């Protein structure tokens, strides 16, 4: 195999590292010290390794390190620290949403991706956004609460960017379920016949 030097931009910091082509983003992130990115299955089934790649939540075990060059990579630890935690991280801690904590970094990454697009998600949207992140400890209930709490606190801080997809996702003003006619993400919608406008 021919290794080459790859530049990876992780949490605002650039790493230059010589890598073989078969190294996954998960492996290189952990080797570079970003051990907050967890390895749970290495095949995209569990979401523990989730990172943001140019703002999209992905399983880093299914991205090759070479493919991630040039992208902005954000891991959970890039959002905040013990002395300066991100509101989402605080909300998870406060809502009792963390038991063993192994799924937590991936969950928070998926939450960040959700709230960046949809600052006021309904419960079904929250659950759908987290559908690729397995948790074995909590039963997801307190995690859903943590996401709701995160959304509320971010709104209070006024720091969340508005969704650019307002036409597709209708975020209601106060977080209640939006009109089912408008939403494309309602569970059970898929069993309706679609009618052209």
């Amino acid at each position, binding site marked *: 195999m021919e290794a080459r030097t790859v530049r990876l931009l992780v949490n605002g910091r650039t790493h230059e590292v010589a890598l073989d082509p078969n190294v996954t983003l998960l492996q290189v992130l952990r080797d570079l010290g970003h051990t907050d990115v967890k390895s749970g299955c290495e095949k995209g089934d569990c979401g523990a390794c989730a990172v943001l790649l140019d703002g999209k939540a992905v399983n880093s075990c299914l991205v090759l390190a070479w493919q991630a060059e040039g992208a902005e990579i954000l891991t959970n630890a890039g959002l905040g620290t013990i002395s300066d935690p991100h509101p989402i991280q605080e909300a998870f801690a406060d809502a009792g949403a963390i038991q063993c904590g192994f799924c937590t970094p991936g969950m928070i990454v998926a939450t960040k991706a959700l709230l960046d697009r949809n600052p006021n998600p309904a419960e079904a949207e929250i659950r759908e956004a987290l559908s690729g992140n397995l948790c074995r400890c909590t039963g997801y209930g307190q995690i859903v609460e943590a996401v709701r709490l995160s959304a509320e606190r971010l709104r209070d801080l006024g720091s969340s960017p508005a969704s650019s997809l307002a036409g597709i996702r209708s975020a209601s003003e106060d977080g209640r379920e939006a009109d089912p006619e408008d939403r494309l993400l309602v569970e059970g*919608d898929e069993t309706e016949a679609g009618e052209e406008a």
Partner: protein
Amino acid sequence: MTLPAFELRQASSIAETLEILASEPKAQPLAGGTCLLVDARARKIRPETLVDLSRVTELRGIERDGDELVIGAMVTIAELLDSPLVAEHAPVLTAVCRKFAAALIRNRATIGGNLAHASPAADTAPPLLVLDAAIELRARGSVRHAPVAEFLVGPCRSDRRPGELLVSVRIPIRPAETRFAYEKIRLRKADAISVVSAAALHDRGDGAIRLALGAVAPTPIRARSAEGALKKSGLTPEGIADAARRAAEDVRPIDDIRGAADYRSRAVEVLVRRCLERLRGDGGEGPDGG
């Protein structure tokens, strides 16, 4: 577990990709990686050379081209889900994408990858089959179009020839009154391979009803004899029941870890009936109240 060793070429254009595929016959395109890298890790495949398509911007993009919707092969399932054009002209595909795998996978899995992997349970196939979609394949010096139905040849076998790259999916744009229905059974509500899936389309323009089934045959298939029967009977209760029975007879499911063959046959009849009833406007519901 580490991936097996391979060379990785990173193309930045279709032309460059085709050059690589032509000069390195063992090279394989790498799309979203959600199937290919999993298979590689398991040593089910041992690719010598992969061609990374993630920088080939020509393979992205969804646009209307005359009377066709053209979707680049590297468009992700998440992008399909977000696309107003797809929602408008191929809402059955939108419905399928909403139930595709799980959120994280949708950000990487691509329509081209899903088709090229050619799993019998490939979720994008049933909607594309009822939409009569075709794909464009290019090789150095050639362009070929093939209906999706002809492209899916066998379980995890596609008709992609050496040197070819699946470049785009082309969907005929249908009249505005077209209705669709989609049903899928899986063993949990996210991130589970389909046990059975069914897509149905009622084209008000030519009046035809198209039915496609997934995970019940060596490839996703059109339920032709059911379609033929419906042409004669129309969407009457008897016609629907008859078509559903024929569809169940048309399939050749297998026993696997997700379900027994006889369960699948039985489920096909139910799903087809429900899809057709929805097309008729009967409503009805599944267990989740939807």
